[in-house]
């Protein structure tokens, strides 16, 4: 607390309300029990005694979204599940945070090309705060992800500034945003333009013969 710190007796602590709330919040992140696939095994290992997520205050896995403020999406999300993930996210009280755990939730992972029913990244469904890559990530990695969430909570200025917590959902569309000169209302003409653009690029990038 800057200049105030250490000016009082030893048993007096000075802090701001915001810092106190952030400290309380980051020290008791309650994750939701939300295992979808193999990553859930690592998440359980993180919660169990060897790695013990409870050391960081995040060991109380809640079985309901209404008591949780952290959603660890552990495992492959498929299209049938996506609407449920979104609903559970909407049911969580603010402020809420999402960890995308594992390659599948980060961007489709091994199912990116030939997975007809796998969502190519859970960030197409819910806004993600921290991505934890790995297939599956080791428990240490998930703990690291949790600490990044805690950093994020630590920096929250919810009370003093009117900072919006809600991100626009979803935060990325997943579609390529084309420059305006390649856009066209007619999809066929747009495709032709894009093809011409690609060819042009390829020709320019081709190595010149010495």
């Amino acid at each position, binding site marked *: 607390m800057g200049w105030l710190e250490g000016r009082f007796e030893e048993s007096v602590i000075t802090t701001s309300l915001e810092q106190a709330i952030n400290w309380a919040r980051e020290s008791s992140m309650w994750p939701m029990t939300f295992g979808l696939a193999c990553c859930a095994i690592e998440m359980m290992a993180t919660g169990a005694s060897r790695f013990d997520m409870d050391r960081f205050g995040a060991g109380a896995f809640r079985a309901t979204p209404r008591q949780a403020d952290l959603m660890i999406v552990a495992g492959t999300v498929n*299209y*049938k599940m*996506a*609407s449920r993930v979104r609903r559970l996210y909407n049911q969580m009280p603010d402020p809420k945070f999402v960890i995308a755990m594992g390659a599948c939730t980060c961007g489709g992972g091994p199912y990116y*090309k030939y997975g*007809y*029913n796998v*969502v*190519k990244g859970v960030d*197409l*469904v819910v806004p993600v705060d921290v991505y934890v890559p790995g297939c599956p990530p080791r428990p240490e990695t998930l703990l690291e992800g949790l600490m990044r969430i805690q950093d994020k909570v630590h920096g929250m200025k919810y009370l003093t500034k009117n900072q919006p917590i809600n991100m626009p959902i979803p935060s990325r*569309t*997943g*579609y390529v945003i084309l420059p305006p000169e390649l856009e066209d209302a007619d999809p066929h003409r747009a495709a032709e333009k894009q093809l011409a653009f690609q060819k042009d690029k390829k020709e320019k990038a081709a190595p010149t013969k010495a």
Partner: protein
Amino acid sequence: MTATEIIAAIETHFGPAIKSKNTEAIDPYVVIEPGDLLEVSRFLRDDPALKFEILSVISGVDYLELDPKKVAKAGFEPHFEVVYHLQSFTHRHRFVLKLILPRWKGDKAGELPEVPSVTGLWASAEWHEREVYDLSGVWFTGHPDLRRILLAEDWIGHPLRKDYEFPLEYHGIRGR
């Protein structure tokens, strides 16, 4: 009973029903017409010497080579197969039934080929048939509740067909 004996037993009862047979394969099989399926299955289940109480699995196999260069080497015409793996706990033997179907009913794309349901003979067939319908696209006539079992109810197409096209978007979520 060995596979040869099982095939001989079927042949004595349903001589012309067997279209082809293979005793050399790891899982010996006979190929029958879809129309004869129910009678042959009932015989296999109820005959005291055979007693196939268990239907282990039903599979749908799509035979289609999409690459025009490989069509000549593929060694098959485009067709669809439904495979039934049967097992007997009483006699400890196994057997395989195969049906050969057109890929589409009447060669009209989108019209699913039809097979009589064996749900009445083996209760386990109900979910197996739903799965084959869901992923491979075979219509089982006489099935009590033929819905999709794995994919979402409003899914379009049958993903394990070779010519299946991946959805670009599903309920506003980008597909690829």
